[in-house]
């Protein structure tokens, strides 16, 4: 498969189907340098911030911890260790609302910062470390995909080989979000060194960083870093056109390589490993500096934020602190969104702590979310189809969703929908299409699980029936054989008669000695 990859990246670019040119509003948050938010007060670290099974807590309430000290671990190969965001005391481990679209409560550890921010450091690793050591270190030091998917980096890198190509995604797909751009501007060496370590962990020697063509000067910054570090032979930087959802992994891969990640497959099926630039920076920090992944850069922006900017905050820092750091919210705020305006989810509770996925805290005002016009019937104009980056037919999926025809939704590739929201954005009938698809996916998953459960219980029932039947049969056989043995008689003739004769004999013999007991 890797044979089909281009010889050199950037010589030719491809186009992915559909897509939208959106106003990006990124400059708003790029006016000042990334500011660090000092850990203070309570941090709420939720357990659910990695895909794969949840780890289990290895600390107890009352215990003191250091920044970067493990607080939860798992035994699954996909497990990634979770660390204390700063030094302090574990105040509680309890169910709290999490940073999730549903705001559902989940296990959280509450840590009160002691203000000293003493660190627990891992040994520093460099290029001389073996592949295995690097991969294990990534898992132990909590590195997951910081682009939002939270996929364990060690698992991704572990799946590749020396022929794999590492793609670093610097194409921030959504409007407003600028944390990756700022990171590339300010810490290009971290990213490039991180890429080098990732290549080492992959065993490969080819990396391309994809950035958007609207990020003026970023390419030069990155290339300078690459040259300074003498990695020109390994790493190239390619500008791609800014078309939403360019930052989607599948879309970026298509643009850079002309290849399509198979439906239901992964980039590794094409010999590609795709990581976010922020993950590369975190990899560098974790491996080269021995610092567990306990902070990230988030953009706090939007028309309803006083002083938009990018902030490096520890995981578990309450949203409220990020918002205050950005000057607070204006009074005409209508929605507080985690993520971008196209794919993010709304939150109401600003005491929730940020996760490794929280790339943006976006406060929109009524001006932008305003026109909450009533939903009209679909007129099948097909605009949704024109912009769908997965070449689906959103209008058909919508009709199937309306008639609860989940089989057809699935047959029409509902699960290839990346929920980018382009269809809903262009819909003149203002149909919340993505909501219908999310519902459809959830319903299908639910039914699948139900079906598995039903099969299992049927199997259990059938096994029980079989067991009972077998027992019954065995009993019958035993009875049968005993009867047969009795009827067939012994070698002396009629066994029954013989037994009766024996009994009589015995009776006769014992009669004089004992009296028949009265009944």
């Amino acid at each position, binding site marked *: 498969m890797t044979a089909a990859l281009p010889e050199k990246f950037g010589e030719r670019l491809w186009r992915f189907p559909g897509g939208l040119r959106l106003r990006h509003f990124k400059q708003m948050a790029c006016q000042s340098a990334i500011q660090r938010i000092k850990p203070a007060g309570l941090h709420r670290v939720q357990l659910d911030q990695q895909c794969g099974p949840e780890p289990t807590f290895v600390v107890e309430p009352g215990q003191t911890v250091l920044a970067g000290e493990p607080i939860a671990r798992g035994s699954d190969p996909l497990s990634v260790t979770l660390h204390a965001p700063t030094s302090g005391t574990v105040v509680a481990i309890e169910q709290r609302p999490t940073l999730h679209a549903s705001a559902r409560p989940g296990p959280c550890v509450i840590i009160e910062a002691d203000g000293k921010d003493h660190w627990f450091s891992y040994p520093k690793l460099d290029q001389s470390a073996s592949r295995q050591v690097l991969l294990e270190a990534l898992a132990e030091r909590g590195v997951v995909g910081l682009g939002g998917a939270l996929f364990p980096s060690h698992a991704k890198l572990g799946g590749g080989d020396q022929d794999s190509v590492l793609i670093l995604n610097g194409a921030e797909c959504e409007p407003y979000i600028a944390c990756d751009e700022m990171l590339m501007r300010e810490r290009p060496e971290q990213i490039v060194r991180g890429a080098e370590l990732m290549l080492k962990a992959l065993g490969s020697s080819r990396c391309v960083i994809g950035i958007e063509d609207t990020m003026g000067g970023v390419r030069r910054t990155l290339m300078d870093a690459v040259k300074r570090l003498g990695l020109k032979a390994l790493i190239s930087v390619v500008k791609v056109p800014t078309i939403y959802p360019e930052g989607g992994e599948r879309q970026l891969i298509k643009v850079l390589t002309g290849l399509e990640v198979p*439906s239901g497959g992964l980039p590794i099926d094409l010999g590609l490993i795709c990581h976010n630039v922020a993950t590369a920076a975190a990899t560098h920090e974790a491996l080269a500096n021995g610092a567990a992944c306990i902070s990230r850069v988030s953009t706090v922006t939007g028309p309803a934020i006083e002083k938009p900017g990018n902030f490096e905050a520890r995981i578990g820092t309450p949203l409220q602190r990020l918002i205050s750091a950005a000057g607070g919210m204006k009074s005409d705020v209508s929605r507080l*969104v985690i993520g971008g305006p196209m794919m993010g989810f709304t939150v109401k509770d600003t005491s929730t702590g940020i996760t490794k996925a929280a790339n943006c805290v976006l406060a929109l005002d009524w001006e932008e979310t305003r026109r909450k016009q009533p939903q*009209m019937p679909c007129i099948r104009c097909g605009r949704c189809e024109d912009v769908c980056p997965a070449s689906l037919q959103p209008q058909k999926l919508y009709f199937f969703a309306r008639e609860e025809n989940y089989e057809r939704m699935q047959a029409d590739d509902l699960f290839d929908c990346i929920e980018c929201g382009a269809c809903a954005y262009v819909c003149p009938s203002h149909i919340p299409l*993505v909501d219908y698809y999310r519902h459809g996916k959830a319903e299908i998953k639910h039914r699948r699980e139900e079906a598995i459960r039903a099969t299992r219980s049927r199997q259990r029932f059938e096994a029980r029936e079989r067991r009972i039947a077998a027992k019954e049969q065995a009993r019958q056989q035993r009875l049968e054989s005993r009867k047969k043995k009795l009827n067939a008689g012994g070698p002396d003739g009629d066994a029954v008669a013989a037994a009766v004769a024996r009994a009589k004999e015995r009776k006769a013999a014992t009669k004089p000695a004992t009296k028949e007991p009265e009944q």
Partner: protein
Amino acid sequence: MKGLESAGSPHWAPPTSIRGVMLHVLLALIPGVLAHWYFFGIGILIQIILAVSFALLFEAAALKLRGRDMRLFLTDLSAPLTAVLFALCLPPLLPWWASMTGMFFAIVVAKHLYGGLGHNPFNPAMVGYAVVLISFPVHATHWLAPAGIAMYTPDFQDVIRAILFQIPPGGMTWDAISEATPLDVIRTGASQGIMIPEIRGDAIFGDFGGRGWEWIANCYALGGLFLLWRKVITWHVPVAMILATIIASSPFWLANPDVHPAPLEHVFTGGLILGAFFIATDPVSGCTTRRGKWIFGIGVGLLTLVIRRWGSFPDGVAFAVLLMNMAAPFIDRHVNPRTFGK
């Protein structure tokens, strides 16, 4: 925080609306209407006003009976658009009751009985026009001669009298005032065995199509380009329809130009350009998939030619569109595009 909304993504308000789409199409029709006015007089404006009034009246009544949101659907501009497209097909002096009948079938039968906006399998304007054409064949063919060759151009009063009371303008008879359309002339001529070049000698013909008609067609095309630019329609249907018309009529014309009209005559006479940009592009009753749009456009083009040649009506665009409307759901069902990564 108080007052924060909960909502699914995307969070940006959609930049378009149904009303916006309909308004764009209405605006795009303005050049065509003006050209029509120039060549055939004020009649078209009166027909538009009449049809729009009837359409809104029937729309309101149907919404009321169906218990739908009056304010929302009456202002979506879909009924006025249907009415304008319908009116553009009518001869300028058509009696008011014919227009009313057409609008009744368009709005009440073709649209609301099938579930209202977005649910009609047939193009309502074409249903209305077909009803008029079939029910009032004489009135529906009372066309006027275009400016430039017309002996008499009816003024406002004439038009009102004709439409409301069926009094022919200028004290003449209907036969004297009405003029066959170019397609009629070709049809009648061809049936009498007259050669096309000879037929085309008639003053009613212009450079490509009918005199006046071709300019109206140009204006419709201009409006169509506006719609393409504003991304209200895609290029597939118009291109497919016009290409199919040209490609399918070329061999006949090349083989025997005496009995077959030239491809460009086909394109620029009758309602083909109006149909290509405004009628066959109706999303509700047409195809939505890209390949479906190709098939739909080609189908309309071919059927138009077939009806023009062998059907019993001079122009076939309306019937061709209605026939393809019937096939559209089937086409769309079988032309799924390839999903990304499959």
